């Protein structure tokens, strides 16, 4: 019954997420609304991690498995991949390096400014 209850809690939140998606005037994915809802429930204490621990551990630990069907669907799009595999390769590789660098430098700058500000306050 414990696992069924946990399923019940998470599926209800997902269902509320879907309902919210329909009500919102702009396109916001239901699963991300559900994630924010769950985070709010945890932060406000409406739900405790214990209420959903086993089920969420199961879903998070096996996350990759649930993507298999979506990935297999690629066999219907092989011609597209064949036509543009080189740009795909170049884009994936270069943007990964650019994103890493941009994140690292922006954090370095933020930490540096925070320290400077902190130092001034102490004086």
């Amino acid at each position: 019954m414990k696992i069924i209850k946990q399923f019940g809690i998470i599926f209800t939140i997902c269902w509320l997420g879907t309902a919210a998606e329909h009500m919102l005037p702009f396109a916001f994915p239901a699963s991300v609304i559900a994630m924010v809802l769950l985070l709010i429930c945890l932060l406000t204490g409406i739900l405790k991690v214990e209420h959903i621990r086993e089920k969420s551990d199961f879903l998070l630990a096996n996350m990759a498995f649930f993507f298999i069907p979506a990935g297999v669907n690629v066999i219907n799009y092989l011609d597209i991949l064949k036509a543009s595999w080189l740009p795909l390769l170049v884009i994936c590789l270069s943007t990964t390096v650019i994103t890493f660098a941009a994140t690292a430098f922006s954090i370095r700058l933020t930490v540096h400014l925070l320290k400077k500000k902190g130092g001034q306050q102490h004086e």
Partner: protein
Amino acid sequence: MNELWASPFFGISLSILAFWIGVRLQKRLKSVLCNPLLIAILLIAGFLSIFKIPYESYNAGGAIINMFLAPATACLAVSIYSKIRILKENWLPIVVGCTVGSVTSMGSVYLLCRLFRLDASMTASLIPKSITTPIAVEVSRAHGGIVPVTVIAVIFTGILGSIFAPFLIRLFGVKDPVAAGLSIGSCSHAVGTSRAIRLGEIQGAMSGLAIGICGIITVIVSMIFAY
């Protein structure tokens, strides 16, 4: 023969078997190239084409597995919540880093797609490629992308990130473990995080946090961008 494949149990069993093989191979070979999801996709695609089984038959079971994606995404909240203390302590660098990382990723993908003259659906498929698969799939679908192409690009980016993470840390002289973890998470989501965990506890936690936060930021920015 077709009735045999059309049962949803076929697609589910085949997926579980293929994923099990993928996980075993990764444990045995200990290589990031052996991503269990990638191996499972290749095995199933090979099996379906060899035995000439239509994708629709496989997807009778596949659709049921697919249904668990939304609950799995929602549970990312639990992994953010479990790191709430470290988030509160470093909230400014985290928010700035993830925002700059997400915007840079989307912007650079968009520009390169223009440069290579890729069409709108291909561009929409690639823009969310640095974030975690469940959210990337939603962003891609919402903006007219091809979901399977997004899945492949996301996995590929993750593998690249986890291979190059130690090299990138040295190349850009990232000494702060908080910055290293967030940078890995923002460019290569969960696959990169598995590597960040091996670099250290702080790197792993930060990379894990970046997954959820970059995901939310990407959804919001892509929404504004679409308007």
